[in-house]
């Protein structure tokens, strides 16, 4: 926030709509092109921008900066406009004030992505974006605050988990200033003195800045930055992943180690990264055929269901359960198996993020320039060829160059996971951390080896998985 120009921009009250508006325009273009444009995915802006560019830019921005996508989220611009007409009246139901619903939606998105081959269907992709807009309007039309962001949005949950490894965080500059503050505008909102009307919103995600730790649940909406009368909240740099190294009580979240729903989210984030990549390499089709024949199933959905159950439930429970059992046995840790599993699950975040980076980074970098001919073609089909004839030869970086980058991301992920698990083991057993560290380091190594194996598999993209 002290960077000349940039700091002033982020302190400006209307920075969010300014960043959201271009993304809203792009979203509308994607929906229209997806519904009415070419049916071939490589020639359509909906599929090209969603599955190549948006995902790639998202993970790279999370790695290099922070949760800036949530800041520029176009869905929230529409919500904000709708809230001028419809004021939400209800509080989000208490039993749903956790991550279970969003975990289920995250799994559902991964599942439908494979089942309906969303990457190959502009029409389905356009409807997915539209469905997102409609869901935002319905949820935040009825429920107060940022219920959709905190409890529903699967993209948001992905961003929250990944941004624990980002180098920037929205936090207070000087705790002393907060100690003397009595108005608490960062959470209550800045109010008019007489009417008590909120003029600048406080945090809608219930994160009280002085007690906020890290990026979990933070959408970088800048509300607290703008509301603070002392200019004491900003986007500050930090060592990536530091919030995973310890387990303090966090405002709006509580203790990580007591949040089974958050641990489940991390499991889906980490194992889902491998599963999502597994869905696009040749061996998955052999597994599907074998499973289909063994279980006598001809439809893809139940076979996919078996694969998802194995990768997102059976495998994590086995791996993490065994690691927790060994931690208890070797380190003499008195905690139960489940609390131990929950506590150390967060050490897998870097490995999972490394895999998402490697996967999405691959598509983004190898298809970097494909947006150019697709845009040229879209404009030409409208009878407005201002960008010239489509140059279909434009693709991206060579795959062998990108492979090195992928290996780098995976190595970073492994190093991060080892560092986090060692730090947690050190907190549990300061004198002899190794017995607690080794089981979790082994889990990270297994995941890293599986990720490396996946990276070297031949890619195979089919519109239907069980064909052939």
């Amino acid at each position, binding site marked *: 926030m002290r960077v000349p120009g940039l700091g002033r921009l982020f302190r400006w009250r209307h920075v969010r709509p300014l960043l959201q508006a271009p993304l809203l325009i792009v979203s509308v273009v994607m929906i229209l092109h997806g519904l009415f444009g070419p049916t071939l995915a*490589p020639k359509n802006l909906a*599929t*090209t921008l969603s599955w*190549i560019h948006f995902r790639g830019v998202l993970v790279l921005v999370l790695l290099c900066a922070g949760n800036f996508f949530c800041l520029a989220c176009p869905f929230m611009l529409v919500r904000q406009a709708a809230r001028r007409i419809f004021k939400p009246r209800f509080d989000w139901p208490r039993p749903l004030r956790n991550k279970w619903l969003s975990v289920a939606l995250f799994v559902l998105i991964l599942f439908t992505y494979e089942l309906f081959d969303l990457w*190959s269907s502009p029409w389905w992709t356009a409807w997915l974006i539209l469905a997102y807009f409609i869901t935002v309007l319905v949820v935040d039309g009825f429920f107060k605050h940022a219920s959709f962001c905190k409890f529903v949005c699967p993209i948001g949950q992905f961003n929250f988990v990944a941004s624990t490894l980002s180098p920037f965080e929205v936090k207070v500059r000087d705790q002393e200033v907060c100690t003397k503050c009595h108005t608490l505008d960062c959470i209550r909102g800045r109010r008019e003195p007489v009417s008590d009307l909120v003029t600048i919103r406080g945090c809608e995600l219930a994160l009280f800045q002085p007690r906020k730790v890290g990026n979990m649940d933070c959408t970088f909406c800048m509300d607290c930055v703008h509301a603070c009368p002392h200019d004491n909240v900003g986007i500050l740099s930090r060592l990536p992943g530091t919030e995973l190294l310890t387990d303090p009580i966090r405002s709006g979240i509580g203790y990580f180690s007591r949040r089974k729903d958050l641990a489940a989210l991390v499991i889906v984030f980490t194992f889902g990264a491998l599963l999502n990549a597994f869905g696009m390499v*040749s061996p998955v089709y052999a597994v599907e055929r074998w499973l289909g024949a063994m279980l006598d199933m001809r439809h893809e959905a139940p076979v996919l269901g078996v694969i998802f159950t194995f990768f997102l439930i059976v495998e994590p429970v086995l791996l993490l359960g065994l690691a927790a059992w060994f931690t208890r046995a070797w380190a003499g840790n008195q905690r139960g198996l489940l609390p131990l599993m929950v506590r150390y699950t967060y050490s897998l975040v870097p490995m999972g993020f490394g895999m998402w980076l490697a996967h999405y980074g691959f598509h983004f970098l190898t298809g970097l320039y494909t947006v150019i001919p697709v845009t040229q073609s879209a404009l030409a089909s409208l009878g407005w060829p201002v960008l010239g004839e489509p140059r279909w030869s434009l693709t991206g970086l060579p795959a062998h160059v990108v492979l090195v980058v992928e290996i780098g991301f995976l190595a970073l992920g492994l190093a991060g996971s080892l560092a986090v698990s060692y730090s947690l083991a050190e907190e549990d057993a300061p004198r002899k951390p190794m017995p607690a560290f080794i089981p979790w380091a082994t889990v990270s190594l297994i995941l890293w080896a599986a990720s490396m194996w996946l990276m070297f598999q031949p*890619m195979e993209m*089919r519109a*239907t998985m069980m*064909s052939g």
Partner: protein
Amino acid sequence: MFDRRVRPQGTRNMASTFRQSGRSVRPLSKERQRFLLLACAATLFFTACSRPADSSRNITVEHEVSPEPARTGPAVITVRLADPAAGVITGARATLEADMSDPGMAPVFAEAREIKPGRYQAHLRFEMAGDWVILLHVTLPGGQKLERQFDVRDVRPN
């Protein structure tokens, strides 16, 4: 055979039936008349703007992919163009465009050569395993353009 007994009644007969049943036929209001007129005009306008019947629809296009089943690497696509009325089509210009089913990949283009009367052959390369879509662009000897699309599914890795 057309059965006269179930032939629908003419308007005149229908009107008399209404009269017989004690209901009078009311003339259409001016607004409705205008609306009908507008609807007719719109229908005429849009049908007038639509393309004439495409004679190229009658042209049959058959294709073969070699090797079969297709594998990654070089492949040969042979296309046979025929007109049911005039037999095989010779002297056409055919180009092929192969696209993967997923975005982020560049299409592969190839010019087809006429190897026998009405048979056109193109050499291209499937870079990745999976499903491919082939777009065939043909310019017929008379200058008429024709486009066809066919799938090459399940290209296996080598």
